[in-house]
């Protein structure tokens, strides 16, 4: 390997590695891409409580069925859909609900699960208790339910 090529490889390697390590000094909330400090699941989580804003379909049998990401957010990625719903509520829950309802109609949710309306709702659960509980138990229902918008299909 010639001197010039060796030097170029060395400079590139050291520079690339330095850039990859650089996020180590970032704050936990300063994530980026493709450089990252990989903060996912790094914060302490002493409580099993979860507060989540999501979209549910209200069916003709009175059930509340969570709506899949492609319909609730127009995206297949579940965590992206969570963020899209949060941003949708922040920028106008009623308009966002209409958007979801339009996609739900297009996806045929009225026929497939008997959906009559769509609700954008924030709820709190104890996640550990949720999975230990049976259907109909209070832990499955959640608490602090707040409906941001409801719209008919």
């Amino acid at each position, binding site marked *: 390997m010639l001197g010039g*090529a060796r030097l170029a*490889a060395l400079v*590139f390697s050291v520079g690339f590695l330095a850039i990859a390590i650089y996020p180590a000094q970032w704050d*936990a909330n300063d994530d980026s891409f*493709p450089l*990252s400090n990989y903060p996912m699941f790094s914060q302490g989580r002493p409580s099993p409580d979860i507060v989540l804003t999501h979209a549910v379909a209200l069916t003709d049998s009175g059930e509340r069925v969570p709506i899949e990401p492609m319909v609730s957010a127009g995206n297949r990625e579940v965590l*992206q859909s*969570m963020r899209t719903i949060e941003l949708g509520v922040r920028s106008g829950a009623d308009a966002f609900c209409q958007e979801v309802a339009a996609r739900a109609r297009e996806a045929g949710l009225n026929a497939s699960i008997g959906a009559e309306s769509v609700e954008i709702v924030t*709820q709190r659960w104890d996640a550990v208790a949720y999975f*230990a509980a049976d259907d109909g138990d209070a832990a499955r229902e959640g608490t602090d339910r707040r409906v941001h918008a409801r719209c008919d299909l």
Partner: protein
Amino acid sequence: MPAARIAMVRLLVGLYGCIYLVVRLPHFWSYGLDDLDRFVPVGVVAWADAPMLPELYRAILLVTVALSFSFFLGVRHRVLAPTYALGLLFCLTHSNSWGKILHTDNLFLLYVIVLAAAPSADALSRDALRRQAKGTDPPPEDGRHGWPIRLMTLVCAVAYLLAGIAKLKNSGLDFAQGDTLRNYVAFDNLRKLQLGSVYSPIGAWLLPYAGFFSMLAWVSYVLELVAPLVCFWRRAGRIWCVLVWGFHFGVLVLMAISFAFQLTFIAFAPFFDVEKLATRKRVKALLERLRLVPAQTG
């Protein structure tokens, strides 16, 4: 180091890229958006105030998918591979600029950048075959084919080290000592369930066993923090790769989170003598069919 090793790594990472981009094309396509309210730019995309025109983004995406094949086959590597790396950098960053950054593609992209900058098509490529047909001597096997391999192993180790440092900084030893991991598994599965997606019933079923999660947390902590050390000891590096693969498999089983690049084991290819794959009969036949090595006559 043999040119075939870095070339085989290029083939594996390139093949992964082709399949991944084609399979995920509808997903990436859906980010052709002009919604300013939801645009939260990161990385190279953060230089712009508004998202790129959806049509232009989709055109770049299609070109990037096409270039993934030229990268895999080693066609005009010096020009097309860096173009592919740039296209991939843009498309993946754009798709992460809508409020939620996912961490499943970082290592894949960093590897592609290294491979694009390196002479990774000096063997097992259309370029190499063309050179051979012209009667040009192949580049000598020396350090030029070794540095990218060493760099990729270090980049891989750094990614895990940073994840360990983040845990140390953000939750200290509580991550391993307390119920943090168990709560994360419960939290992540419940949010997936309530967002209408696939969750892990196995993770949910194991929740009563708090000690199990504490043990897993300790294992992940140690694997992440010792990562840079194993780069300097080949045998330990390989054992570490297998253990980290097991860690990702555990994440898949307990949380339904797929780090596809790691789970295919391609992320760990630079730690192994992958050039030996090319001597296997079936692989050899496949390489011949793809016209990446000269066809054997007789």
